[in-house]
């Protein structure tokens, strides 16, 4: 097991390196000059040259690449070209906001999706099932930012219940934090929950038809024990896969939704840095997002071992 985790982490680092490399060269392949963008069209060639030298952008590509990699190895992301200041502190400011939105979305989505999926499967083709199915299709057919706008209009403007702008750090209290992020969290959580719920429903229906469920009936186990003791864990195995993959959706959702709610998170940072050709910042944001996804994957794989006794990493796999 320990060997397996070590292997997964090593693999994760490899993926991160790959992402870093692709991003590095990819960004530089996009036409345009960050220094000119920064200094404006009237800047003299001299000014451009000296700033370029200062930022190390006059070095040949491979030297820049090696510099960037050595920095990365020490968790240094370089300095922002346009905003000054180290990229790492920009990331440290922005990432918690986006992560908070994603986390609230995850908790909200899951806590709706699992019970709704169970209800939907156990009351197949009844009112509860149709209601859950309808809501999940609504969630699936609307992008997160659109749901965000709807929520902002309804709960922020019409009912005036929740703030629709800005972010309160959790250091200022849990409830103010939660309040400032509830609407964006729900906005990303709904589409996520909708997918997870559909999966939970179909997975549970499939499990209910497994021969071992008939065994449980033939054994005299009552319906509720059959559902929660015999079926639920088996049904969750494919749900965890989907939930893990969809974390990417959750993050993508947070990035757009935070712009709707005027939160200066990773999404805002990414968009600004791309427009400004602020290479180091763009690279940093992408690496952080990639890191989150790699981490989620490791967590999902470890969850499997908890849920499915047939999977034992590190030993023989059956």
């Amino acid at each position, binding site marked *: 097991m320990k060997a397996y985790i070590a292997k997964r982490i090593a693999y994760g680092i490899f993926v991160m390196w790959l992402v870093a490399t692709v991003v590095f060269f990819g960004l530089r392949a996009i036409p345009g000059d960050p220094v000119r963008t920064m200094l404006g069209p009237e800047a003299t060639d001299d000014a451009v040259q000296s700033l370029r030298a200062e930022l190390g952008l006059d070095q040949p590509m491979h030297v820049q690449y090696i510099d960037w990699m050595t920095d990365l190895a020490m968790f240094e992301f370089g300095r922002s070209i346009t905003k000054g200041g180290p990229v790492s502190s920009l990331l440290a400011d922005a990432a918690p906001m986006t992560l908070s939105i994603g986390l609230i979305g995850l908790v909200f989505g899951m806590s709706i999706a699992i019970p709704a999926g169970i209800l939907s499967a156990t009351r197949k083709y009844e009112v509860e099932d149709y209601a859950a199915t309808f809501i999940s299709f609504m969630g699936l057919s609307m992008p997160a930012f659109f749901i965000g706008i709807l929520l902002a209009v309804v709960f922020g403007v019409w009912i005036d219940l929740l703030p629709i702008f800005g972010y309160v750090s959790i250091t200022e209290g849990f409830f103010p934090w939660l309040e400032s992020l509830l609407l964006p969290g729900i906005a990303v959580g709904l589409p996520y929950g909708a997918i997870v719920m559909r999966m939970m429903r179909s997975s549970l229906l499939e499990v209910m038809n497994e021969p*071992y469920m008939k065994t449980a009936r*033939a054994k005299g186990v009552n319906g509720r024990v059959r559902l929660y003791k015999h079926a639920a864990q088996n049904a969750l195995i494919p749900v965890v896969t989907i939930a893990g993959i969809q974390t990417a959706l959750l993050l993508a959702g947070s990035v757009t939704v935070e712009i709707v709610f005027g939160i200066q998170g990773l999404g805002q940072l990414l968009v600004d840095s791309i427009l400004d050709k602020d290479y180091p910042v763009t690279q940093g944001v992408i690496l952080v997002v990639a890191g989150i996804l790699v981490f989620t994957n490791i967590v999902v794989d470890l969850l499997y071992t908890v849920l*499915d006794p047939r999977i034992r990493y590190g030993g023989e796999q059956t």
Partner: protein
Amino acid sequence: MSLLTVKGLTTEFHTRRGVVTAVDDVDLTVNRGELVGLVGESGSGKTVLAESVVGLVEEPGVVTADSIVFDGQRLDQLTESEMRTLRGGKIAMVFQDPMTSLNPTISTGEQIAEAVRLHNDTGESISLPAELKRKIFGAAKDTESWRRAIELLEEVGIPEPSVRVTEYPHEFSGGMRQRVMISMALAGEPDLLIADEPTTALDVTVQAQILEDLKSLSQEFDTAILMITHDLAVVAETCDRVNVMYAGNIIERAPADELFANPQHPYTQGLLASTPRANKRRKLDPIPGNVPDLTNISYACHFAPRCPESTAECYDVEPEFRSMGPDHVAACLQRDPEVSDRE
């Protein structure tokens, strides 16, 4: 003395295409401690019949019966929760595929112990929270039900039962899993064990072993076995009496020896001719044609379209059982009833 007496049992499935009559007005008797075979091709309704008896048929299936009497109790009048105490208790089942019939996420010991708790007075709680606790944190090892689970595993011949009891089904071989299934079925010391194709999914070498085990367990616990199978060889090896089923009807019923020596119904004769081991001749003759679609069958003898001896009458007149000898009946119009003082 009869343990189970089923009279006029019909099971219909209401589907969009029409009503499928899987079991059509069937009588069945199992005596105490007796090994009874229920033989038929897949689709003959044999499994549905057994599941109808114990109330395992689910929507859209509808079971009706004149009466189902088990150990003096009218099963057809029990509520679902009363039925549940019988299922896995006095009437237990073993299914075809031990690979998929055991829950992959519950240890084999806990699966057996659960059956023990449900059908014996162990003083352990069987409420949902208690069961969930066992599921999440593992079963308590110092309980009556856990000790009994180990005993039961030993009973069915699993080596090192106190080690294997904590293992999961995937760590067992096919034959061992079927033994686990059997030990689970024995948890409530059943009077009747319904074994639905218990050896079909197993290796040939293991098959004979499992049948032997079932036979000796039946003796030891005085448990009657209803052996559901498509395989006449299985019947020949285990059963005292045989019921042959075709397209929802039992069409012949006889002591096993008698049936093999003297089959009367054309379908039974065809079945025997197509079975390698029971067949004395060299050539195998499979019965031409297939089991009919059971939706709205319009002809009286369901075997008529495949029967080499059918006449026009067979399509109009439903064949009743005719006595073919002591304890031997067949439902065929072309057989003259033997004068007999039985039946």
